[in-house]
Structures are given as structure tokens and as C-alpha cells.
């Protein structure tokens, strides 16, 4: 009996067979994920310029990193971005998913519309939105003026939104340090939410459809109000899905790059560096002239550490409320 015949006779659940099936995906994960992470970890201890390792520097790059004011400001910008995108995206996509889960007319149409931004090229999306936000020729300012408002600078506005609001309301007591994210960053956040919502809706819809109908029927017989149904059936039974969406949206938000690269500036990260997120900072430090791949690797590992910690914290705190 050859090994192939033996393999064929064994049951589907045989561990060897399972391992064999896992090999193709495993190779991809190892080659394109694990090895780069490992090499980034190693490179972060070396001085690397243009692919050439020039010497071991130990933790020096980490020390320099923590002393660079631009690193901290880009970290702050990223935090604003994540705080802006994650809660709103979660709320809006859940809201839309619940609505799309009803038996309404033209359901397929609505589902398609919400999903369209996801399948549209992010590059095209970014360029179109950049035009919409254009201070002089953009659609958004045109509408604002049409409605009798003034025009805003959008992607070219470095002032923080709290600061702008305080200025508009004459709140002179508002502390200058609490300027908030720049309007430019808010513009990027809006696009990110618009773009990412469709994907989350699909995940939520799948979760919603996994909730057995009997619970809803029972609730209806007991005369529960729609609000009670949502909070006592939908919300708890959807919690594994919500948890997954929360985790994945947070991780993806920390890694935002394309929209920043395409929508902001020149120079990218502008105005006044208020949209320079951590991954762009990393890219600049690694690939610009004068860049150092070792240093960029150190940034990548710090970011990895931050995301890992946050994910663990989320698991600790949020997962307790998840009903599997």
C-alpha cells in the first residue's frame, strides 16, 4: 500500500490529512507573515541602510525612537484616528445591518449600495474624496455655501476641531492644549468610515442571520417591544460578531496608510503634520532618502506591541461580556 493509498483510506479528520490541507495556507502565512515579522524584529537591532546591514546597535534605535517628538505626535494622531473610526464605524454598521436584516423592499439594492465602497479601489476612492473636499472646487463646500454656510478648508485645515468649535462659539475659556484632531484628520476619518462600513455590515448581517428565529418568535408571543427584543436577544447573541468586528476594525485602523498617503499633502501627513499617522511615519523613516530600515523596523515592532497589548486588553475586558 503506497502512502497515497493509505492517505486516501484514512478518514477526513485524520490529523495528517488535516495538516496536509493546511500546508498551502501555512506556507503563505509563514513566508509572508511570520518570516517578515521575525526579520523585522532582528533588523530593529541593526543599522540598515538601503538593504545593507551596517552594524549592531542594540536598543539604540528604540531609545532614539522614544525621544523623537514626531514619533509621539504621529502616535497621538493615530490614536485620534482609531478613536474616530472604531466606535462610529461599529455603531453605523450595526445600525445599518439591523435595518438591512428586515424584510424590506429592494433589499438587494441597499445591500449592494452599502457594499460598493468596499469593492471600489481605495486609490480611486481617495482621489474622488480629495476632490470632494477641495476648498475651492469641491462639492462639499459648494453644498455648504448653497445652504448658507461658509466654506471650510477640510484637508488643508490644521486647526483642531474642538479649537474651531470653541472659536466659533466664542468659548475663550477653552484650553489651547485641547485642540483635538485637525479637521483634515476628521475628513480622512469620514472617508475611512464610509469606506469600511460595508464590510462590517456584511459580517453583522451574517451574525444576525445566525440568531435562531425561535427566540424572536417567543419574544413576539410574550409581547416584547422592539427595543426589548434588540437589547435582550439581538445584542447578546450578536456579541461574538460585535467582538470580532471591534477587534478587526481596531487593528485595521491602527494600520491606516493608503488614504493618508493619497489624500493628504503635499507633503503627505499635512497640513502641519496633523495627519501623519504611525505607519506613514514608519514608511518615511524606512524609505525616504536618509531612511533606515532598522529604525523603521523598530517603529513597526512598537506598533505591533501596541496592537497586541490593546487586543489582549480588549479580550480581557470585552470578552467577558461575550456570549458564545
Amino acid at each position, binding site marked *: 500500500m503506497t502512502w497515497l493509498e493509505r492517505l486516501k483510506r484514512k478518514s477526513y479528520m485524520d490529523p495528517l490529512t488535516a495538516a496536509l490541507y493546511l500546508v498551502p495556507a501555512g506556507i503563505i502565512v509563514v513566508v509572508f507573515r511570520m518570516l517578515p515579522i521575525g526579520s523585522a524584529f532582528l533588523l530593529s537591532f541593526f543599522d540598515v*541602510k*538601503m*538593504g*545593507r546591514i551596517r552594524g549592531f546597535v542594540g536598543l539604540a534605535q528604540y531609545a*532614539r525612537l522614544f*525621544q*523623537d*517628538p*514626531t514619533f509621539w505626535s504621529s502616535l497621538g494622531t493615530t490614536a485620534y484616528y482609531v478613536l474616530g473610526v472604531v466606535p462610529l464605524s461599529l455603531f453605523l454598521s450595526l445600525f445599518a445591518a439591523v435595518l438591512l436584516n428586515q424584510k424590506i423592499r429592494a433589499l438587494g439594492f441597499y445591500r449592494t449600495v452599502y457594499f460598493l465602497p468596499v469593492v471600489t479601489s481605495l486609490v480611486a476612492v481617495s482621489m474622488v474624496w480629495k476632490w470632494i473636499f477641495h*476648498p*475651492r472646487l469641491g462639492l462639499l463646500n459648494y453644498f455648504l455655501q448653497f445652504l448658507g454656510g461658509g466654506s471650510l478648508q477640510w484637508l*488643508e485645515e*490644521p*486647526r483642531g476641531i474642538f479649537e474651531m468649535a470653541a472659536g466659533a462659539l466664542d468659548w475663550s475659556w477653552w484650553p489651547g492644549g485641547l485642540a483635538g484632531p485637525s479637521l483634515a484628520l476628521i475628513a480622512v476619518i469620514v472617508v475611512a468610515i464610509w469606506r469600511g462600513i460595508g464590510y462590517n455590515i456584511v459580517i453583522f448581517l451574517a451574525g444576525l442571520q445566525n440568531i435562531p428565529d425561535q427566540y424572536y418568535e417567543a419574544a413576539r408571543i410574550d409581547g416584547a417591544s422592539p427595543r426589548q427584543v434588540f437589547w435582550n436577544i439581538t445584542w447578546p447573541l450578536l456579541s461574538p460578531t460585535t467582538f470580532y468586528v471591534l477587534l478587526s476594525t481596531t487593528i485595521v485602523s491602527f494600520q491606516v496608510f493608503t488614504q493618508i498617503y493619497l489624500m493628504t499633502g*503635499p*507633503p*503627505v*501627513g*499635512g*497640513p*502641519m*503634520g496633523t495627519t501623519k499617522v504611525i505607519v506613514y511615519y514608519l*514608511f518615511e523613516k524606512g*524609505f*525616504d*532618502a*536618509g*531612511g533606515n*530600515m532598522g529604525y523603521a523596523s523598530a517603529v513597526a515592532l512598537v506598533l505591533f506591541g501596541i496592537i497586541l497589548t490593546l487586543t489582549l486588553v480588549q479580550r480581557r475586558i470585552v470578552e467577558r461580556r461575550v456570549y458564545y
Partner: protein
Amino acid sequence: MKRYVIAVAVVLTVAALIAGCGGGGEESTSGVVTVQFWHAMGGPLGDALDELVAEFNETHPGIDIVSISMGRYQALSQKIMAAVAAGQPPVLAQAYEAWTGELIENGSAEPLNTYIEGADGLTAAEIDDFVPGMLDNNSWEGTIYSFPFNKSVRAIYWNRDLFAAEGLDHAPTDWSEYEGFARRLTKDTDGDGKIDQWGTAGQISAWMFENLLLQTGGQILTDDGTAVAFDSAEGVDALEFMVRLLTKWGKVTSGYEYQNDFQAGKVAMIEGSTVSLSFMEGKYTFDMAVAPLPEQKGKGCYVAGTNVVIFSNASQAQKDAAWKFIKWFTSPETTARWAARTGYAPVRMSATASEAMTARFAEIDGLKEVLQQLEFASYEPRSGAWYAGRKHLEEVGVEGALRQRMTPPEALIEAARLVNAALAGQ
């Protein structure tokens, strides 16, 4: 069996594709030497370059220069650095001095002295014909690694018709005239309480600030290049002047909109690179002239623009072909045509007397005087550290002050803090 054949076909196709991707820099078998040339020339500049490249290829059988635009300079630098790291650089590329410095350190830039001194080289008289300072700025410890390619200086563009309406017959020659003229030319022409015509306009530009700094006697970095020197009284002077000029008697626009406003006659004068000429060509109807930058304590002018480098990985045949192209491109005749067409400065002194440039000088009033600024021009620090730090000067120092987020002294102190951190990090 059929399925097996298909599988093999797929594998072979993929393998061929992968092999094809890796073969970018190879020479073809037909005896033609292919030279990949990466640059960042777009719009009219890209068209002009492509035409000259096509002409070179036609007149030089056996050489095929492939001109590839990478978009912006920043994208070009990122692609060059990544390509070098991957061991797949082009043969020829535009490069700022700071990039060349990095490439030299990495052993990736080809020293050009042997080519200059070789059989197909340049005579001493030809070397002397290069604009003073340009070749020095392309030399590192006595070795020439790059050649000046597209160099520009700043100029005042002024609308003679609007100036004449205000009784002004010349472009500003010093700072007080610069501001005074801008004030007089800022007007509410239709009496609705809104200003319709601005004295000047500009974009957020570290280059403009650096020129002003030089004119008022300041300098960018200390002499040894290890620390910032722009956070000086002269720096504050220069930045305060820039802010007054562009926010009281002018406006700050995003990107190149100030050029459009100037073309439309809504702005009386602008400061810009000589290359703006090629972007404005045929887009204005008034009597336009250019003039050298106004002086303050003295004249001051920083040269901008890139050079070309040859990468040492290329084969000798490719390097020889690339050198032929550089020599041809920087010859008095070609550089004159390139300059007349684009607004870049010709890199050879004798080019100014050429037919192409004489005709251009007759067309654009004041261009000759603008290009004469090259004779006393300065060059920015060349270190990679400054290249990385310069961004902070632009986005914190200049932008912070122009958007009135900070006062000029505050903006300079903050920018200096960030630039010094960048300088120390190298």
C-alpha cells in the same frame, strides 16, 4: 491528462512572468543597450524630456534610453531607495544631492571622473563652461558622482499692466519695495468691501523662506552642518517678512493655485521657480515679465532641482551609454533647448549665447537677469540629515507661521527643535 497539461501550462506561464519581472535591467540580444532612466518630470516638463530622449535615441543607434516618470520627487526617492535595497536599481536617475550622498555611502553611485577624463569625456574648457559651483556641488571629496540636470532659481513674475495702472514701472528690487508694491497693488476694485486684486500670493514653501533668510544674512545650518542656525534674528526677520507679505498683501493658496490666480490677473506679482514658466506658457494675456529676487542686506538665491546619477550595478555598456546621454544632455546646445523649453537654468555658460536662449530671452522680458542669479547662487546643505529635517522647517516653521498657528519666533523655535532632533538622529 488534459488537466495535467493545463496545470503545467499555468505553472510555466507564471514562471515566465516571474522571470520577466526580474529581467528589467538586462541588455537585449539585438545589440541595443537599454538604459532605464527614472525621473520625476511630469506635465510639460515630462513632455519636453521625453522629446529630447526620443531625439537622443534616434541620433544614437544602439542606445535606447527608457524614460520612466515616477511622479513626485518623494515617490522617486522612495522607489530608488527600495530598488537599491532590492538590488534592482535603474541605470540612470534624477537625484538630489542628499540622495546621491546616501548612494555613495552605500557604494551604489558610479564615480564619473573616469568618464569625464576618458576618450569620450569632456575637455578642460568644457568643464570650465559649466555654471560655476554646479559641478562642485556634485562632487564629494574631489570625486564627481552626479551631473547637474534640471536646476532652477526663483524669480519674481510681475504683471506689467497691473503695475502700470498703479504707476509702477519696475519689479521690486529690495524688500521695502517688495512689500510697498504689494500693498499698493492690493485693491478692492469694485468697491464691495472685498479685496479683488492681491499684491502677491504664494504657497507654503521652505524654499522661499530659505531665499529670504539668505537675503537678510542668515544661514540654514551652522557651518559644520550639525545644528540649526535658522532660529536666529535673521530667521525671524525673514519669516516675519514672509508672513506679512503673504497674509496682509497677499494670500497663501494650496498647491499651485497662486499661479492660476496670477494668470487670471487677480494677483499682481508672484514669486516662483523659473520652471513655472513652462506651466504658465500661453495661459496669460497680459504683459508679463520676470525679475531677479529683491535684495535685503544682500542678494541671495538658492538653486533648486536635481542632478543625474549612474548606478554602479549596471553593466559597463549601460554605464557608457548613460554617460553618452548625460554628456549629450548637458552639452551647450541641448541644455539651451531644454532650458528654453522648460524654464530650467542652462547648466553651461555658453548656452546663454545660443540661438534657443537668445530667442527665449527676447520672448520673456527679464529672464536673462533672472538666470544671472546663478553667478552668486548658493546651494542647500547636502546631508541626508538636512533632507529629512527640511520637512519640519516647511510643515512646522513655515506652515505654522503662514497659517498663523504660531508667531514666527515660536514657529522657528519649534521647527528648530524638530530639525535638531532629526540632525542628531543620523
